[in-house]
């Protein structure tokens, strides 16, 4: 845990230590200050006032105040740098880590939880770190120094501290022990409340069209009241902090004054009309009170920090979870950097997403594809078509069996080389905010404008891009929300083509494209990119029927393979679907 933090402090170690150093110096100053003030007051209370002496003390005090200011300011600045730096490094490390994750790693954390970890959780740790290197150093120091100083001022009275401080400490621990579990519980409820708000915002059309506003308000009020009740209980426990603290300070004041006055009156002597204090002076009395307040205050700060830190520990746990997850897909020791050709072979491949899952997502699948072939994969949702193709670019690793690309097991390749040669257009595809060109260059950073246009022509995207006012410089909004589904798919195909791969996988990537354009894309792929192995997943038989090979998947099994004609004869499922799609889309076929 601590190691995780120390690892990320890195270049900010210097600032962290400087911050600790200056905080300590500041504390020393603040503890000596009341002592000097005592000396000053004693001088002023002396019968014969010596201006020079007073001026000297005043000057020392002034210097100390400025020193304390400088130390405090420096400590504040260094600790701000160190903690902001820590959070920067944490975020950067997290981001790098997440970038190294495999698909199955990403699946196991949801993407929204990764976002929370990188933002809220890191901020919590930053604040806690700042607290630790500043206040958490300051408070115990202050406590110890104050007690030491009060022993110096009056050993006869300082023992009171030894009673009051542990008492207060005990009360604080009690409060934390009672309040923390309640807070944890209520925060969960609070999350649920916020979820229900989010749900309502998303579903507002449903709420309104079913005229359920009052019902939702009623439901929300009940939940909100529930949260309020629990929060109030927890906060009322914490609210005992202040009174406990005040009780201690007041008691301390009364006891010190009572005993202190007694001691002074018993020990002070009048010699030549001047009062000589033997063990405790008047100035000493008021400095004792200051030390008392200082030490108890720092105790309270400490208790508040402990609460903050316990909350941050939860955040740190969540961060650590990400940091310690090792990508389960790694390069082997001597990876290959060249993919010979676009041959693909599956040898008795079985796969499950989770080691503990009882059901195989793919069981015992074997087939062979020659470089340059076009292969269709057909099957209903949940038949593991996507799972199958994800194994080719090693987005997941097989559970049993082997996947070969260019006659070599995919595990033998350098991952980057493999993925650059196996280009996948994902089913859930995305464009990023930026221009069309910028999006295209994801495929190939050094692609020229001509190359980009060529790829877009091949994917039938050029025709509509030319219709945009800014053509290839048209800005795409986050998630590609300003282009239609069909246009997005065509852009994504172009982006994949720019990688100039040996294998191209289209995972239901033309579902929103009209049949005519769909056919055109397939035609241009066949003619312009004959050497590329093309694997096409589709629900539409018309998109697959002219493939060299069609694989029929059902519930993770490869139930049939062959050409369109062969399957029409041998596979009843295929035949039925073909018949039904043909009757629905009868118009298409006749056109």
């Amino acid at each position: 845990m601590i190691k995780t933090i120390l690892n990320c402090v890195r270049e900010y170690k210097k600032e962290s230590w400087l911050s600790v150093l200056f905080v300590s110096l500041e504390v020393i100053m603040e503890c000596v200050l009341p002592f000097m003030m005592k000396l000053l007051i004693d001088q002023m209370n002396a019968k014969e006032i010596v201006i020079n002496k007073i001026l000297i003390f005043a000057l020392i005090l002034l210097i100390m105040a400025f020193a304390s200011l400088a130390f405090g300011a420096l400590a504040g600045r260094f600790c701000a740098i160190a903690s902001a730096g820590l959070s920067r490094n944490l975020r950067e490390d997290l981001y790098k880590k997440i970038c190294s994750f495999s698909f199955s790693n990403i699946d196991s954390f949801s993407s929204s939880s990764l976002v929370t970890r990188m933002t809220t959780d890191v901020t919590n740790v930053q604040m806690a770190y700042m607290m630790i290197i500043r206040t958490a150093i300051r408070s115990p120091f202050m406590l110890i120094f104050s007690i030491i100083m009060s022993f110096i001022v009056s050993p006869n009275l300082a023992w009171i501290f030894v009673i009051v401080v542990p008492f207060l400490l005990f009360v604080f621990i009690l409060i934390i022990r009672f309040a923390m579990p309640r807070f944890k519980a209520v925060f969960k409820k609070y999350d649920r409340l916020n979820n229900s708000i989010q749900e309502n915002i998303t579903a507002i059309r449903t709420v309104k069209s079913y005229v359920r506003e009052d019902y939702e308000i009623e439901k929300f009020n009940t939940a909100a009241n529930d949260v309020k009740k629990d929060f109030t209980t927890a906060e009322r426990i914490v609210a005992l902090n202040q009174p406990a603290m005040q009780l201690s300070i007041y008691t301390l004041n009364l006891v010190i004054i009572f005993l202190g006055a007694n001691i002074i009156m018993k020990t002070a002597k009048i010699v030549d009309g001047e009062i000589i204090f033997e063990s405790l002076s008047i100035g000493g009395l008021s400095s004792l009170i200051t030390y008392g307040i200082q030490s108890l205050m720092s105790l309270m700060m400490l208790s508040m920090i402990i609460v903050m830190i316990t909350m941050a520990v939860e955040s740190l746990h969540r961060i650590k979870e990400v940091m310690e997850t090792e990508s389960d897909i790694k390069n082997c020791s001597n990876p290959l950097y060249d993919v010979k050709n676009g041959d693909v072979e599956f040898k008795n491949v079985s796969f499950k997403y989770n080691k503990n899952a009882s059901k195989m997502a793919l069981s015992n699948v074997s087939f062979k594809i020659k470089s340059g072939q076009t292969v269709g994969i057909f099957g209903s949702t949940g038949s593991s078509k996507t799972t199958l193709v994800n194994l080719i670019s090693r987005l997941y690793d097989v559970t049993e069996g082997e996947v070969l690309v260019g006659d070599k097991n995919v595990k033998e390749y350098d991952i980057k080389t493999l993925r650059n040669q196996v280009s996948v257009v994902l089913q859930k595809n995305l464009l990023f905010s930026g221009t069309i060109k910028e999006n295209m260059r994801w495929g190939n950073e050094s692609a020229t404008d001509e190359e980009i246009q060529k790829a877009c022509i091949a994917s039938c995207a050029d025709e509509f891009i030319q219709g945009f006012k800014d053509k290839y410089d048209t800005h795409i909004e986050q998630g590609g929300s300003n282009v239609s589904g069909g246009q997005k798919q065509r852009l994504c195909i172009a982006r994949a083509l720019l990688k100039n791969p040996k294998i191209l996988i289209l995972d239901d990537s033309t579902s929103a494209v009209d049949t005519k354009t769909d056919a055109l894309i397939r035609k241009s792929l066949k003619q312009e990119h004959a050497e590329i192995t093309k694997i096409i997943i589709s629900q539409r038989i018309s998109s697959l029927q002219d493939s060299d090979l069609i694989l029929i998947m059902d519930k993770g099994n490869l139930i049939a393979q062959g050409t369109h004609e062969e399957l029409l004869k041998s596979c009843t499922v295929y035949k039925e679907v073909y018949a039904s799609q043909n009757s629905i889309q009868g118009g298409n076929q006749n056109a």
Partner: protein
Amino acid sequence: MRKPPLNLKNINKSATLKRLLKYLFRYYKLRIFIVIICLIFSAVGGISASIFIQQIIDNVINPGIINGFESVKETFITLLSVMATIYALALISNTLFNQLMAIITQGFLCQVRKDMFKKMETLPISYFDQNLRGDIMSTYTNDVDALRQVVSQTLPQLLNTLMMVTGIFFLMLSFSIYLTLIVLCSVLFILFATKKIGGNSSKYFIKQQKSIAKEEGFIEEMMHGQKVVKVFCHEEKSIEDFKIINDQLFNDSMKANSYANILGPVIHNIGNILYVVVAIVGTILFVLNVPNISLQGIKKLDIGIVVSFLTMSRQFANSFNQVSQQINSLVMGLAGASRIFNLLDEKSETDDGYVTLVNAEISEDGTITETDHYTSHWAWKHPKKDGQLVYTELKGDIQLFNVDFGYNKDKLVLHDISIYANPGQKIALVGATGAGKTTITNLITRFYDLADGKVRYDGININKIKKADLRRSIAFVLQDTNLFTGTVKDNIRYGKLDASDEEVYEAAKIANAYDFIMRLPQGFDTMLTSDGANLSQGQRQLLSIARAAILNAPVLILDEATSSIDTRTEKLVQDGMDKLMNGRTVFVIAHRLSTIQNSNAIMVMDHGRIIERGNHDSLIKEKGTYYQLYTGAFELE
């Protein structure tokens, strides 16, 4: 359509603060009054502590040394007990204050949440179209949290300081006017430092807030596209982009916290310096025998006065220090409060409708009488101007006459739309994204109001119908199926809250959802999470069909899902929809032409106009846009 984000600089801080106080006061008059009393007591406790020591020194210790302990014993005990009483009172009021503040804070926040939610539910759909979901959410989370800080810490702290400062100020005046002037000078320094350093700190905190939002946006986009990033081996490039944003955040955060951290020591030490200055000046005045002017009159300056003054001046400066620590909370809290007020000030959906929907009995001769029980018949109750009540049977006859509509006045998105749907007819709307299909259905349900033209429901202008009753008479199956956290049963029952279990099962059967629900681990009692993540897209659609079926309304608006679902489930969904459509007036927003061939009328839309209308056969014969769409020459989406 989106509104620009609220600029923090444009917030009228004092007006917001005033409104916040008023809001707070409305709910907790008595308690806030008690809180103020408590604060006064604890301030008195705090102030008397500072003069208490001097009282002891002057009246007990000094004479005690000279005359012996016995002579001052009585005064000593009196003083101690007076002090103990004041302390006890201060302690009690402090406890009361803290407990009350916990109750007030949480109660107030709960009230704010409730008020916001209640308001939100009444807002028109346009509000949700114009504001990002994340922005609305952040008002509930971040802004309410910021408010919490202000209510529970900042405001009481300010109040407390105000009392302490005023109290000590008058006390100081009663001791010495010269010395008070010195203290006032230091206040100028403190205010200056607070304005300079605190101002910078706030500036960077606001900047930091913006950087966080930017970084959050970036992370969000990249996390959701993480799989694409991987497929394109784009990790390194995205790390570089990330670093730039991350550095900016570091910079802002570092500066914001630096200034905030520096402010404390500065003010604290101005207090220390003040201490020294008062000590020197006091001593010099004493030595020079300058007469002391105070509220008590002109007297000789006593060194005891100077010493008590020292304690007071320190306490005075410390009070300012505590307030200065709250400045950032105050700035953030007021920004949050103003966003909350903005939400509360949004204009609610208005409803001038007076025609209501009632249960009705229809006799054989066609006369309609209103009843209070369910009869499976409904009627529109139309109070005419002359006081007469006219009942019209609810049939589901919907007519649009020359309707124009625009989201703002300058730009119409629908032009001259006329559609006549007789009860039981199926009307299909076909066209590209943005052609205005969904907008038409938004007008029928009055999510938006027409710019021109008329819509009649069973012959009644829909503007006269109460919105709730209008919407109750229309069932919806929307493109995105929104499920709510709760059981499957709860979700189906959403269409009719008092539906019996049998009705729920019946509706599930109509929607072809019964079989898959029975296969779920707990059947109809299976808990669903808010996004229904444990169900497939097709299953969620089946549930939303069941939800519409249980409502049993004469008019149905169907927005077909665009995402591809597998052939088998699709057939189930299609069957379910067909059963649901039976006997109802239906508006279908079609994404697949195969499902609408049997419609009574098909409207082909383009850029807000109906460009072709007719049934399937006549449109095919026309060989126009529909024909081209149908043959796949055009993209639908």
